[in-house]
């Protein structure tokens, strides 16, 4: 692997990809641990797919599709959070509607865009090697904001997630935490689309956490292990994708699933020895 690294390090796009891998691992590690703990995986999937509407609009009007996606995802997130408390719609049905509505809007606008929509596949399947400086800035900004938010409000986030009603009776700022976290999750999903694509990005926020939960039942440790596992998956997947010449998004997810089975085996043998 050394020869690949020294071979690649001279390229700008590769250094960008390495930085993206690191930021993706940190942001997905934090946001993913939250959505897995709170069982919000389906909501998060809905947000990601809904954001495709924004990508289509970005193409049509000629601005960065990721910005359109961010706007769509954040509005959807706020809408879900608002509606879940006030309107009596079955939540899973509402998410499914949002999920496909966003995709439909995206397809319509991409179709209406004159000429060929360049890089469309990169948004659907991810392409970490083509991230732009602008994409990195978004991801960097988000990661820093999220780290600060977690450092400052870690316990409020934890307690609100664990038992929202109790948190309300303690008069904790539950709404502030819930809305902030929904926005952060939506942005994490969108800014990591460049890494794994709309279709696969959800796995970046769930497979590392599933691996971590094999070894720990503590939120903080779960987040840290998820970051490490996520980084190994993204970095390793990138190496595979380069040396085997396959799409990076798919090879990252493939490697993460393999890591999951390895982790299960390790834990199986550890417990057998201990038992």
């Amino acid at each position, binding site marked *: 692997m050394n020869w690949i690294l020294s071979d690649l390090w001279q390229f700008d796009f590769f250094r960008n990809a390495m930085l993206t891998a690191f930021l993706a691992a940190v942001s997905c590690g934090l946001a993913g*641990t939250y959505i897995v*703990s709170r*069982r919000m995986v389906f909501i998060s999937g809905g947000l990601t797919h809904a954001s495709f509407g924004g990508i289509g609009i970005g193409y049509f009007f000629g601005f960065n599709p990721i910005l359109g996606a961010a706007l769509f995802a954040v509005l959807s997130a706020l809408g879900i959070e608002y509606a879940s408390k006030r309107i*009596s719609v079955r939540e899973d049905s509402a998410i499914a509607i949002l999920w496909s509505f966003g995709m439909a809007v995206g397809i319509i606008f991409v179709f209406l865009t004159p000429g060929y929509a360049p890089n469309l596949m990169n948004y659907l399947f991810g392409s970490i090697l083509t991230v732009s400086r602008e994409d990195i800035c978004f991801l960097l900004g988000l990661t820093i904001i999220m780290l600060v938010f977690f*450092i*400052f*409000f*870690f*316990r*409020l986030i*934890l*307690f609100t*997630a*664990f*038992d929202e*009603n*109790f*948190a*309300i*009776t*303690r*008069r*904790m*700022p539950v709404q*502030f935490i819930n809305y902030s976290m929904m926005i952060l999750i939506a942005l994490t999903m969108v800014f990591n689309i460049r890494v794994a694509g709309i279709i696969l990005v959800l796995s970046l926020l769930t497979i590392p956490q599933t691996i971590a*939960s094999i070894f*720990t*039942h*503590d*939120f903080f440790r*779960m987040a840290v292990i998820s970051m490490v596992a996520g980084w190994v998956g993204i970095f390793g997947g990138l190496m595979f994708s380069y040396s085997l010449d396959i799409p990076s998004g798919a090879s990252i997810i493939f490697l993460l699933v393999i890591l999951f089975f390895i982790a299960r085996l390790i834990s199986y043998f550890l417990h057998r020895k201990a038992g």
Partner: protein
Amino acid sequence: MADKLIEMRSVYAGYGNAVILRDVDLDIYSDDFIGVIGPNGGGKTTLIKTILGLIKPRKGKVSYMFDRDRHAIGYLPQLHKFDPRFPIKVCEVVLSGLYDNRLRPSIYRRKDRMKAMELLESMNIQDLAKMPIGELSGGQMQRTFLCRAIISDPILLILDEPNTYVDNKFEHDLYDRLKDLNKRMAILLVSHDIGTISYYIKSIACVNHKVHYHGSGKITQDQLAAYDCPIQIITHGAVPHTVLKTHQDELDTE
């Protein structure tokens, strides 16, 4: 003379289109130990959620006669509401009872941690402090949640069926503790087992859409019938037990 803590006047409350509580008047005083009884679906949980502010009344008013910034209401919810797989440690659960409406960073003072450990010790579960909450037994979980409910030294403690999923020995142990806590705080205890709690409570609130307050801890089946509160009375020990016959009313409740 005990101080009045909470005053409910003509309160209507419910979820969605269903109005579960109708025209409720209830006062809670600082030395009260009220047993809340009533049939399933009659509104016991709705009543305490309204008192806690988790549900806004449709009509009527709930007044708090104390400074809510200085005094807490302790709450022990029903056990089955938790996700047992949530990654949180027992000591963190207890400490969560100290957080409030201040937006403060995630740092505990040393004395907070000491207090949490003391409470866990008083419940004999200090060895479990570092365990994930999901690995505890029902009784151990209830103890943990009781610690969380009382760590803030509340002025009123509200417990929603704390006797589910626990064994008999722990149940009596719990009621003895509550009796002791009642010297420092008012207690509202929801239970489906009026026989056992009647040894500990001072008064009874029968909740069957309406609330009937009964000023003593003892209640007969005739009184229950008069209150339109069709529940079973089952007592343990030497007292002969009685089972209330089914009223027509019971069939009317949802």
